């Protein structure tokens, strides 16, 4: 996809340069049609394709672990631990493995995707400009809605795991899922 976008960009730049060199582009009907396609439609189509591509690329685990502070979290997906939530979800294919970080760290509420993008900007600021020392923590407590988005209708959740006794508390958020499922990521160094 990246190759296609770059190839299309080169073709588009050449076409724009050709139209630019033609004097009196808008003087004739053919010139107007040419300008409409080359200067009007094609750049917008290419821009849309690029935005879609970069949006998808930014949701991938590969992108998240580009910052070295995120590398241990990326490694925790492969940890040999059947209690850590990230490892269990990733290794059992319970989430899209390519987008494992994004799937669990995006709230399934109105504008959740937009909020995730804005949080990403804060991550970049914290990473490059500092302002955060010590262990990395979530900006806000992890909400049950994000777990229940998938698990809420699952038979394994509704009938198993001892959830029945406090279903209302879980659904209202009064009791956090993380009170029992308390290990989000497993780090190899913790054993050292």
């Amino acid at each position: 996809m990246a190759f296609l976008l770059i190839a299309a960009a080169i073709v588009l730049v050449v076409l724009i340069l050709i139209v630019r060199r033609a004097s009196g582009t808008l003087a004739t009907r053919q010139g107007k049609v040419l300008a409409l396609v080359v200067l009007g439609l094609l750049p917008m189509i290419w821009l849309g394709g690029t935005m879609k591509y970069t949006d998808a690329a930014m949701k991938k685990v590969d992108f998240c672990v580009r910052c070295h502070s995120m590398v241990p979290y990326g490694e925790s997906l492969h940890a040999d631990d059947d209690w850590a939530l990230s490892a269990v979800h990733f290794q059992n294919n319970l989430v899209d493995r390519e987008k494992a970080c994004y799937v669990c760290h995006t709230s399934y509420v109105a504008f959740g995707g937009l909020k995730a993008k804005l949080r990403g900007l804060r991550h970049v600021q914290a990473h490059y400009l500092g302002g955060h020392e010590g262990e990395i923590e979530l900006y806000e407590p992890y909400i049950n809605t994000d777990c229940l988005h998938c698990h809420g209708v699952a038979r394994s959740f509704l009938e198993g795991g001892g959830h029945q006794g406090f279903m209302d508390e879980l659904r209202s958020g009064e009791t956090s899922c993380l009170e029992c499922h308390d290990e989000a990521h497993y780090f190899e160094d913790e054993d050292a």
Partner: protein
Amino acid sequence: MPSLSALMPWRQTDEQLIRRGSILEIVGIVLLAITVLVHNPLLMVILLPLGALVVLLGWVAWAWAFMRSL
């Protein structure tokens, strides 16, 4: 160096708008192409909105000239 008011679309001829708009579109496309190639988070945060803005500015310049020529 043209003054800022001289750069306003209504102060420019169709040819000037096409010339300047097309250059802006090319610059924006190059910035976005770099973003596609380099998946560096910092570069993406800077170049993605900047490239998109420059392309859109160029597009507005072209569209102004086009609408005026109709």
